[in-house]
């Protein structure tokens, strides 16, 4: 089993890793066509992965219901939502799935009335929690925390029109905080992450990193 579980996957990773990397530097039309084919395959795999995701989701909620695990009632709502939306998409206002999408259909109604409202509401709740957290947790416990606090206040006030009404300096200081210290930190993080990604990719290509194969060794 060793060749199937280890040697072949490592060889494929090496082959496709070097090929996928190298082809980016070839300007021949063949390379462009090949890139297009690879991208197409990737999309097909993406589609199959979606099916796998649906299976996994259904399996998870089915198991929850069967075992009557805590909160299993919510899983019923998953199936309700999943089946109703799927039925609405397949029915497509009486013209069925493969026809052009019908406007003002049941799906549109469900999307507008349920999903848009629920999604916007969920995100809006954040505003309330941020305000609550501001009172409870945002403390100047140290010099660094005080600095962060001051920067946050300046940026928050500087980003809204009332900031310029309070003081004409607010927008300028806010812009400076975003363009200079913020950018320096972000650049450092980005470079670190990119170097890490390159190192990890090379480790995978050359078979040094094998955790993606599963198993303990």
């Amino acid at each position, binding site marked *: 089993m060793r060749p199937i579980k280890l040697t072949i996957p490592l060889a494929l990773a090496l082959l496709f890793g070097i090929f996928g990397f190298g082809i980016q530097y070839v300007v021949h039309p063949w390379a462009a066509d090949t890139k297009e084919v*690879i991208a197409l395959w990737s999309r097909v795999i993406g589609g199959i992965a979606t099916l796998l995701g649906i299976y996994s989701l259904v399996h998870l909620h089915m198991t929850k219901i069967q075992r009557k695990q805590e909160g299993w009632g919510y899983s019923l709502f998953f199936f309700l939502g999943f089946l109703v939306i799927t039925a609405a998409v397949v029915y497509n206002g009486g013209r069925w799935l493969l026809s052009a999408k019908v406007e003002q259909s049941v799906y549109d109604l469900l999307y507008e009335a349920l999903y848009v409202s*629920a999604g916007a509401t969920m995100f809006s709740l954040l505003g309330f929690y941020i305000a609550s957290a*501001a009172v409870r947790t945002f*403390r100047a416990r140290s010099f660094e925390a005080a600095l962060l606090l001051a920067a946050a206040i300046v940026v*928050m006030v500087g*980003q*809204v029109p009332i900031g310029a009404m309070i003081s004409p300096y607010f927008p300028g200081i806010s812009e400076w905080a975003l363009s200079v210290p913020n950018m320096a930190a*972000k650049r450092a993080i980005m470079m670190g992450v990119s170097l890490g990604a390159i190192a990890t990719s090379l480790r995978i290509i050359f078979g040094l990193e094998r955790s993606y194969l599963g198993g303990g060794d």
Partner: protein
Amino acid sequence: MRVPWSDPRVIFPLVAGAIALGLLVHVKQPIEPQESVVAVHDYIQQLPKGSAVLLAVDFDPQAMAELRPMTEAIIEQCLDQDLHVVGMTFWPLGAQLGYDMFKTVADEPRFRDKEAGRDYVYLGYKPGDLSQVITNMGENLLTTFPQDYRNRPTGTMPIFRDVKSLRNVKYIIDLAAGSTPDAWIIFGGDKYNVPMAVGCTAISGPDLYVRLKNHQINGLVAGLRGAADYETLLQKAGLGVGGMFAQSLIHVMIVLFVIAGNVAFFVGKRRQRRRG
């Protein structure tokens, strides 16, 4: 020391009240558009008639409050300028929202002469790895999207007569609630040498300053404030400008909450020290 009114039962109604007041009472505030927003507006303004602009509508209803006003303002400006607008999304749950936004703008009486497939097209959602799909679009837009959102074949659409791939697009704008701008910049803008801008939620704005200052994007429209700036530039007050007073009130309120929380914290600390 605990702030006496720090209970959510007090804070939440205060926040709700401030938002309601801000939305119901229209207080005009001077809005000075930020440079990064002006850059997007001006770039679109100078594009020759008939140029193709790609709008990636990469968000869903959760970020709608911030991103919808700016998306509609940009579509409107493009149609006003007689540009060809191509829309698409990488967010499955944003596909219908994108369609709604295009339809809302195109249905305005002054755009009655604009036709789907000729002046604008909404291609909908495309699954798959972002880098691969963008690469596909860079090589061939029509094989990536053989049909638009309403299943109409794209091959016969006049809008695609001169636009075969990303290389023929004059401007890419990613309106994003997530991490799609990175992929668009790396695999779209940089690789195919297409100028790019990003519209994003306020929280993602600071992340994109690096791209802006590196000139990987030539403009940035961030948050509802960005939308308000854009609407100001178009001289059409919409949801962005309309939401500015509410946002100003909430920002000031949160700053006051932070100050009050810290005053209580230091007073409590001092009392503790006195007690020994």
